[in-house]
């Protein structure tokens, strides 16, 4: 059976002695790790959906996320600030792609520049999130405290803030670890580690993680700010 098939099949990607996906083990592990992490976030968002679906009222995100730094109390700028945050994170994904591409071209200087831009993007996103959390905290929102009213004016459940802070916090922690990973990649690049190795595969793996964290934000953003 097996002896027959391998003799007749022309491509031998799966017949052993090489990686069937043409990747080294680290990238394969990263993909599986990301699948695993997708399940973590999936579970969070489904939990959030379940509780929200079984709750009578929910605050209107347009009225919760309506401010930006240095704005007056009465400003009504729904989702403007979070759009900027999202834009920053997506741009940082673009610079990450450029870093990966520069790595494939073995262009050390370009890798360094784009990694620095990515790190700045990540830090900018984290700062925005820190400001937003701080702002909401000053309005009385925290785990277990929800000052916002439902869209129909009735008292709202604390699960709005509970889920918001837990899930955006968990995502923010991922961004934070992504920034740390990118900083390590930057130091290794500057020290010429990858040049000596002859490849910038580590940057590609860090890039996969970074894009994943961005992708997760798209879902978190949709679930908390848009619907």
């Amino acid at each position, binding site marked *: 059976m097996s002896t027959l*098939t391998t003799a007749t099949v022309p491509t031998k990607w799966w017949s*052993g002695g090489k990686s069937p996906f043409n990747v080294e*083990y680290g990238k394969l*592990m990263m993909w599986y790790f990301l699948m695993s992490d997708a*399940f973590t976030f999936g*579970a969070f968002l489904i*939990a959030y959906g379940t509780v929200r679906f079984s709750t009578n009222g929910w605050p209107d995100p347009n009225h919760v996320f309506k401010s930006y730094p240095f704005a007056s109390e009465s400003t009504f700028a729904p989702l403007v600030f979070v759009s900027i945050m999202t834009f920053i994170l997506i741009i940082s994904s673009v610079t990450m792609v450029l870093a990966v591409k520069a790595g494939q071209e073995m262009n050390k200087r370009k890798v360094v520049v784009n990694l620095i831009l990515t790190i700045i993007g990540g830090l900018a996103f984290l700062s925005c999130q820190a400001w937003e959390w701080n702002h909401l905290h000053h309005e009385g929102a925290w785990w277990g405290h929800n000052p916002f009213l439902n869209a129909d004016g009735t008292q709202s459940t604390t699960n709005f803030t509970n889920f918001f802070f837990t899930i955006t916090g968990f995502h923010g922690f991922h961004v934070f670890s992504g920034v740390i990973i990118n900083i390590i990649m930057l130091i290794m690049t500057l020290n010429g580690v990858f040049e000596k*190795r002859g490849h910038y595969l580590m940057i590609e793996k860090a890039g996969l993680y970074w894009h994943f964290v961005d992708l997760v934000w798209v879902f978190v953003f949709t679930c908390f700010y848009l619907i």
Partner: protein
Amino acid sequence: MSNEAVLHAPTTTITHHHDAHADHGHEHHHHETFITKYVFSQDHKMIAKQFLITGMVWAVLGGLMSVLFRLQLGYPDAKFPWLQDLLGKFWVEDGKITAQAYYALVTTHGTVLVFFVLTAGLSGTFANFLIPLQIGARDMASPFMNMLSYWFFFAASCVMLSSLFVETGPFSGGWTAYPPLSALGQASPGSKTGMDLWLIAMALFVVSSLLGGLNYIATVLNMRTKGMSMTRMPLTIWALFFTAVLGVLSFPVLFSGFILLIFDRNFGTSFYLSDLYVNGVTLPNEGGSAILFQHLFWFLGHPEVYIILLPAMGMVSEILSTNARKPIFGYIAMIGSLFAIAILAFLVWAHHMFVTGLNPFLGSIFVLLTLLIAVPSAIKVFNWLTTLWRGNIRFTPGMLFAIGFVSLFISGGLTGIWLGNSALDIHLHDTYFVIAHFHIVMGVASMFGMFAGVYHWYPKMYGRYLNNTLAYTHFWITLIGAYLIFWPMHYQGLAGMPRRYYDYSIWESFKQFAELNRFISTVAMVVFATQLLFLFNFFYSIFKGRKVTNQNPWGSTTLEWTAPIRPGHGNWPGEIPEVHRWAYDYGKDGRDFVPQTEPVGANESHH
């Protein structure tokens, strides 16, 4: 350098050899200290032994706990002042095991056996030991992550162990840790510090299982030796591969559930809490759902039973075929059924929740999906039986335990068909019927798979044999004992006897079972004592067992038996063997067996 060129580079530096594998082999000839060889080892074989021995320590502790609570169930009126001297007042007061201690014992027994023994101890041991040896690799894809995986497990073990010694006792709300009991410290002494430690231990355990699982998957996919196509792999590897995939995809969901639980416990959230009164005090929590935790928990919890079972199934397939001197029957069907089980494992979790108020229509869908698992399970059972059919069977201890596994899997599997029906479950849920079912089909069966694996691969692990007389005694008492313990529980369950009660003698309906309970407890103690025979055999034989002189003592076809009797780090001293055929050429063309490394002859028949 292209992607192609860095393939298979096992270390971070790129070598210019074409065969990076071969290069990896002599990297480890440098002097190894005690620490790097036995403690922080990166050799998959040593890590496997570390998992095995830690798992055995937990098995003894977990088993001892069951003896203690069986003591309470079998002899509810007896007093054991000597136990009080031994264990202290928290556990035993006035010579009686306290109710609090009883629940702590039941909970810890479950957690420890399910996660620490049958997950880490079973797949941690055999995935580590067998994957590189059977697919022809020098080591795991990442030996360093592999080492971390063990040490995270060790850390989890330490935290779990320490929870036994805190003043308010270990967690006592059942291994499923349902809120609100697990979420509210004021609800029970065990829900205080003990529960915090339980959660920390389990979080560490999830990390360990993730690190290990990623490694197993990457190794199986990427590191197979030349000629080892996926459909030439031994079924052990297929089973361990699916186990790793299950773990990598289901543990993160449990992890999310635990994070929400940690927030509920410590940060005033109400994810799982709503409308609660504790000791007459109204709690402010509102809007949460306790059922939500059950969904998150069982999304792991159900795949978890297959994480436990699949490695045992894989090893049993391998051992049955080797010792029946026959090819495994239906090799592709075996892989297909493993795959079907792995998929269905994710689609049946709500059968643990039929009576939680689940929509009956939804329940009926879960009944259908649950009963579907009977199909791949039956395929596997029939394939095992047909592998044995007219085989030239050698009753080695490993083989006996493998046959015992098949017996237990059938007995326990059949009651699964009862429990999978939501209507029957109204009567049977949370009774001793459930206890009997899952202990036989998952607990004892996987334990048998593990024993089979240890007896079969012990010569490869330590280069010595276990004592057969002790092994046969161990097998027969354990098999008969397992049935004597769990078979009567079916009747108790059918009579409605609920699980997790501290004392049945005060219930008019269950007084009739007093003697049966005493009988079960007595057998449990005998079986536990018999396991000490195995322990003695295991540790004695490491040092004093009969030495293995034959490189391939069982006449096996697989690659691990082409390695030296005591393989060093790197497994094969020279080149890695190349594979030319599948793993089950037994009794072919008048030959007893044909190793995988032997090229296919010109006149050879097809199997």
